[in-house]
């Protein structure tokens, strides 16, 4: 087995195990930390594909900022109630399995129909640009897809404003009337 193949299988196994433990762990904090682990191992897979910038951004944005906030908020709560909700209840268990199944089905279906497993043309395009270069990515984002990119930014801004508005309204999201 070559070093590349070993790296790929190791990282793939790590990603799958940590992704599975996100849903299989009973403690929400372990789940959140496993999700962070998944992000990091996906970033490592990006590195093996020589997409260094994507790997760095993946770590900075998801593992370094988003998941830290998740973990922080989870730790602030008294988790006894959540622990019960996570471990007990046939309905929630069935719901979890059903949602995992449908997501996995969606992914497999998308891969099957989109023919992503055969990419000779895309590979030849990638070979003409320098490996790990940021300019092609920037051109895609800021020239070709600039409208979609900006629209996503506005969407995120709307979400942020909406969250602040909700939390500042009477009683906030935890109001008990």
């Amino acid at each position: 087995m070559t070093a590349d193949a070993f790296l790929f299988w190791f990282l793939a196994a790590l990603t799958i195990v940590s992704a599975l433990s996100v849903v299989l762990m009973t403690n929400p904090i372990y789940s959140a930390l496993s999700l962070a682990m998944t992000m990091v191992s996906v970033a490592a897979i990006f590195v093996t594909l020589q997409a260094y910038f994507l790997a760095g951004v993946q770590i900075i944005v998801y593992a370094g900022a988003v998941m830290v906030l998740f973990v922080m908020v989870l730790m602030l709560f008294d988790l006894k109630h959540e622990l019960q909700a996570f471990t007990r209840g046939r309905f929630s268990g069935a719901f979890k399995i059903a949602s995992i199944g449908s997501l996995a089905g969606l992914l497999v279906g998308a891969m099957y129909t989109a023919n992503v497993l055969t990419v000779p043309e895309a590979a030849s395009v990638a070979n003409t640009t320098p490996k790990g270069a940021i300019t092609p990515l920037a051109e895609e984002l800021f020239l070709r897809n600039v409208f979609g990119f900006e629209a996503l930014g506005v969407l995120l801004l709307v979400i942020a404003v909406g969250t602040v508005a909700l939390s500042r309204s009477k009683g906030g999201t935890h109001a008990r009337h």
Partner: protein
Amino acid sequence: MTSMGTTGFEITVNLIKTVLVFLMMVQAVPILVWLERRGSAFIQNRFGPNRVGPLGLLQLLADAVKFLTKEDFAPEKGNRFMFYAAPVFALIPAAIAYMAIPMSVPLKLESATFLIQGFEINVGIVFVLGISSLAAYTILMAGWGSGSKFSLMGAMRASAQIISYELALGLSIVGVILMYGTFNFNEMILQQQGPLSFQAFGYTVSTVALPNWGIFYQPVGMILFFAATFAESNRLPFDLAEGEAELVAGFHTEYGGFKMLMFFIGEYGHMMIASGLMATFFFGGYGIPYVSIQDVQNFGMNLFGSEIAANVFNTVVHFLMYNLKFGLFLWIFIHVRWTLPRFRYDQLMDLGWKTMLPWALANTMVTATVMFVTSYFMF
């Protein structure tokens, strides 16, 4: 990232190098602790540790023995797994991120070239910032795993602070990235060689008195970056994570012995990353002001008369220069800790979100505008 080499010799050297950089980082910590204790004593007009060995230098050894032989204690109400995992994880991000910083001119030995850094990665800045931002997890794990309210509150404060200042930190170097046009540390350092010279409106402006360092182009970015790194490494005046008047000792209240020391190494590791980045971004990295890499090489050739000896000489001289700058910034870290008082928590958040973030944004925009105007309009 360059590969680990093609021949067995190259691969072996590169593997040993990664271990060496890690050991260098870990071994620098006792020296820094000694420097910090003696330095603080000097600043506060005391003696500091001066009994064990010459100048108290063997105090480090005594401390290490003490830390290793202490009782291995874990709080009963805590989460044992998290409690033991946190200090180990505290070392990893700091060590990996530090390896990406170049410390000297690549060493050429006949056909092989060895970089004096753990590994080269093409998007060095993004990599270092990303990896070092993972340190927030260790603090949260320690705080939550300890099962004590002081630890948890300290961890909350620390991680909120780290996330807040990461924004200012990231934005403050966007100007630097724009200016150099690269994410690669080595290319940045090579661009800072020689005297200050730049092109504006079609003219070339150059001086002989100043080196071509980033600080002369990005002074605001430098100040913001340095201030933000203090917050990132949880040092005074931003050490709200500890705040011993309010929180006993913050997230490591329950830790003792070697586990505590590992957090220490992590904290000093972040200081080292910050000092290395300061030198690389704003002070020419391993470059020597007024002397080019080729000058040192020629001098070495005259001195030793052989190519390999000159290469080794060149690498060693630049390595010493890097360590001089590196040590200077580490000393500033220590000096600031013992001179400035601590912020209040709301002041800290105000400074991060309402002062440093807008200034960093403004710095980015001004840099971009100036770069565009000076390169597209000719007179």
